[in-house]
């Protein structure tokens, strides 16, 4: 996969793997999640970006 800096994402295109530190409210614990991990579970990924906690989303 080429660098995302030179190749902006396009609809229909492949998303390069990424990883995020997360807070998991169900387990009440911290952890990590990656796109590869979700793909390996055969699941869709919905990413929901918002500006900041303590505001509306």
């Amino acid at each position, binding site marked *: 996969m080429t660098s*995302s800096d030179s190749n*902006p*994402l*396009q*609809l*229909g*295109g*492949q*998303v*390069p793997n*990424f990883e*995020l*530190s*997360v*807070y*998991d*409210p*169900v387990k009440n614990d*911290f952890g990590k*999640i990656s*796109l590869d991990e*979700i*793909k390996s*579970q*055969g*699941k*869709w*990924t*919905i*990413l*929901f*970006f*918002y*500006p*900041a*906690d*303590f505001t*509306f*989303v």
Partner: protein
Amino acid sequence: MGAALITVSTDTQFVHLAWRRHEKSLENVQYLMGADPSGKVSRLFGVYVEDAGLALRGTFLINPEGRLLNSEVSFFNMGRNIDELMRKFKANLYLAKKPAEACPAQWKDEGDKTLTPGPNMVGKVHEALAK
């Protein structure tokens, strides 16, 4: 529903925890709350605003093979509507099962009329939808 929902902001996971504890409307939250303090993932999706250090309200749908199939970005001051997101997700789930078909404008849910593009449909979309 076969999808991993992850919310992402440039706050840390520690702030996510504090916010979730503090804000009553987040009591029943089940989704992972992603931390992107470096802005790396927000930049990847083109929603990072450098001057603000914040992410725009972007929603992205990626299929299980890792292809980006839907995106929607709103400015800071406009919230989203979960019904709109669910409509797009349902349409994409349907199209994943029926790759030869297309969901026309106003398609809302499984059972609604779809189109199968081909020579017979050229110039005959109105008739195809009326069938």
